[in-house]
């Protein structure tokens, strides 16, 4: 029976230059379907604990899913690796065409291991796989690299995933860019690539993708697209405003992180909201490959110092990290800052947090102009923000300190900086203040990458008001339900913004059309639980436990000073109760470590339990 799986893993060892093709085991497929599922499994099985994330033993596991390559709206690839920023589980997703090209070349999964001696790029041309010299590409930015490789290979249809200078210089939060400007952003996959001397991966795949029931899929699509059009988020709000549409709600409810997490609302936030962006700088709407939501916007700055800057963005998270945290409400400056990050190839969320930490230290005289290469790193200093971002991406001067990410930078700066630094397990949070969103307080605390908003995405329902954001009760169970579901969405791979139209029953409905076998909702749930507990097991193996599932102290002691969540903190006792309840629901012990029986129930095997 035809299936949308290619059925193969492509493995490249950069140390030996060996290329191997392995079958994608049916057992693995049934256990975890694809995407984040396969990536997490392989990462756990193939990596020993305690390795250096920037050493040759780390791996980059790029996975596609059953929907990749088909007309079922899907979102790119997920790459799993050990994070150089956090030292724990790392996974990043990116939309666009790259993933589809990989599958059309005949592979569901690409594993990159080892380390090349000289800068190389990988060229996958269907069956023909080569490692090519990248010395003339080293030092080029993400846009130039894309163009140069396509030119060298003589085919502008080639899809290229590449790193910029930030990846080459091993900035701990360097990203991987594919297509025009789709980005596997957080946790530093670009640095892993850079540490392997791998500048880029270019793919040309000429195969066609089949599915089990193509007529059934067309029929499904007709109904699915109708549902998309009838659902507010996917028919109106995301297509019109994109993620910047969230600016109003977050600020009005006082949870928009401002002035390095000291406040919950940015003055004149309307200058950076969806309406302003649309009116002032949007040129057109853009969609990832196969997506009917087109949340992305192509923008161009029309006036001022940065006139002419072109960007795919800016997204909510960058508006918070470069705008809110630095107290800058000039959209043109934020766009420029975003473009700097994109060109250099680094995560704007971590970069913004790092600069804002430095601004907070400067404000409290922990840092002076002597430390910051003469830059006046005050809040709201637009020029300083842009210059600092450039310095970080190039490891220039003080940028070299911030390039390590918030946790390490705070340690290096010392003098109390560590008390100010905001991160969980080394990852800076997404743009929602937990004091005004108790579900977020839990979700970011237990997220598999650190303070990540993607694992459970509970922020969605709290900011909408579907659940009461100020209440603790019921959050653990709700979070678990979301995490399980989104873990399965991450196997297919479905974009988070299709969350309202991909309930369990829809996933169960479309799966057999793609791959020819069925899974009941209950079985899908187990797959979700399995992935979450496996990622947790990976982190436990790296030394994580309950002590790492907490926010910095000030979120429990310092109330938000004003706005829609004025006076709110995270109540420590309530938080501990939520942790207890969440661990229990997951079958983990009071230290947050998966119990042997739970792992066995999930089919994760005895050897796993013993490793802990």
């Amino acid at each position, binding site marked *: 029976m035809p299936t949308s799986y290619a059925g193969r893993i492509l493995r490249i060892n950069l140390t030996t230059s060996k290329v191997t093709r392995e079958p994608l085991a049916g057992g693995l497929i049934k256990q975890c379907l694809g995407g984040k599922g396969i990536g997490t499994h392989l990462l756990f099985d193939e990596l020993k604990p305690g390795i250096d994330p920037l050493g040759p033993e780390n791996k980059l596991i790029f996975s596609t899913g059953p929907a990749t390559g088909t007309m079922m709206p899907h979102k790119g690839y997920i790459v799993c690796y050990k994070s150089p920023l956090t030292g724990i589980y790392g996974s990043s997703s990116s939309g666009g065409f790259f993933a589809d090209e990989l599958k059309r070349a005949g592979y569901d999964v690409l594993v990159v291991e080892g380390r090349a001696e000289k800068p190389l790029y990988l060229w996958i041309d269907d069956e023909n796989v080569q490692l090519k010299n990248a010395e003339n590409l080293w030092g080029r930015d993400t846009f130039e690299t894309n163009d140069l490789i396509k030119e060298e290979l003589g085919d502008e249809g080639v899809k290229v995933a590449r790193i910029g200078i930030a990846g080459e210089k091993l900035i701990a939060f360097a990203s991987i860019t594919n297509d025009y400007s789709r980005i596997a952003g957080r946790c530093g996959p670009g640095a892993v690539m850079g540490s392997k001397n791998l500048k880029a991966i270019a793919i040309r795949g000429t195969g066609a993708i089949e599915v089990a029931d193509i007529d059934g899929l067309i029929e499904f699509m007709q109904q699915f697209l109708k549902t998309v059009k009838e659902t507010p988020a996917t028919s109106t709000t995301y297509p019109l405003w994109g993620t910047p549409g969230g600016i109003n709600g977050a600020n009005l*409810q006082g949870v928009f992180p401002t002035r390095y997490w000291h406040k919950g609302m940015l003055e004149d936030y309307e200058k950076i909201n969806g309406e302003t962006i649309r009116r002032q700088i949007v040129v057109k709407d853009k969609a990832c490959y196969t997506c009917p939501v087109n949340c992305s916007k192509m923008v161009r700055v029309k006036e001022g110092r940065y006139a002419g800057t072109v960007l795919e963005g800016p*997204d909510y998270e960058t508006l918070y990290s470069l705008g809110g945290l630095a107290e800058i409400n000039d959209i043109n400056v934020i766009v420029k800052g975003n473009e700097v990050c994109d060109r250099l190839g680094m995560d704007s969320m971590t970069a913004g947090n790092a600069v804002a930490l430095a601004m907070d230290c400067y404000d409290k005289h922990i840092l002076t102009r002597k430390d910051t290469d003469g830059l006046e790193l005050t809040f709201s200093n637009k020029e300083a923000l842009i210059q600092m971002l450039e310095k970080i991406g190039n490891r220039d001067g003080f940028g070299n300190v911030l390039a390590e990410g918030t946790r390490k930078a705070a340690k290096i700066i010392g003098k109390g900086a560590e008390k100010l630094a905001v991160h969980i397990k080394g990852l800076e949070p997404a743009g929602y203040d937990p004091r005004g969103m108790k579900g977020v307080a839990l979700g970011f605390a237990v997220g598999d990458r650190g303070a990540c908003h993607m694992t459970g995405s509970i922020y969605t329902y709290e900011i909408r008001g579907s659940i009461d954001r100020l209440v603790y009760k019921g959050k653990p169970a709700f979070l678990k339900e979301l995490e399980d579901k989104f873990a399965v969405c991450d196997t297919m791979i479905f974009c988070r913004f299709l969350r309202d139209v991909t309930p369990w029953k829809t996933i169960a409905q479309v799966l057999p059309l793609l791959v020819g076998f069925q899974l009941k909702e209950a079985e899908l749930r187990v797959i979700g639980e399995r992935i979450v507990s496996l990622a947790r097991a990976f982190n436990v193996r790296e030394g994580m436990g309950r002590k790492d599932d907490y926010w910095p102290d000030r979120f429990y002691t310092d109330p938000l000073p004003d706005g829609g969540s004025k006076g709110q903190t995270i109540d420590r006792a309530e938080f501990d109760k939520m942790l207890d309840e969440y661990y229990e629901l997951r079958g983990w012990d009071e230290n947050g470590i998966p119990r042997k029986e739970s792992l066995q129930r999930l089919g994760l095997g005895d050897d796993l339990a013993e490793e802990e």
Partner: protein
Amino acid sequence: MVTVKVFGNLRKIVGASECRIDIGGNYNTIGHLLFSFARQYGKQLKHELFDSECEIRPTYSVLVNGGNITSFLGLETKLKEDDVVAILPVVEGG
């Protein structure tokens, strides 16, 4: 008087980003406010904001002083002088 801030399409219909509305006596719930608001700005606003059962469309959130009315008493939530009401399209960033 309460301040009503509007966002998205509502701004086009209302012709402003915020306005002040009188609340008085027994007509001091969110429901009363919104119906009077709809009456003031006509059919287009009514249709934009309410469905055929006179419930707020799921595309919109209504906040009072930063708190969603779904955490209070919905349309029965009582208002007081100088409260700030916001009506905005439901989007959650990402």
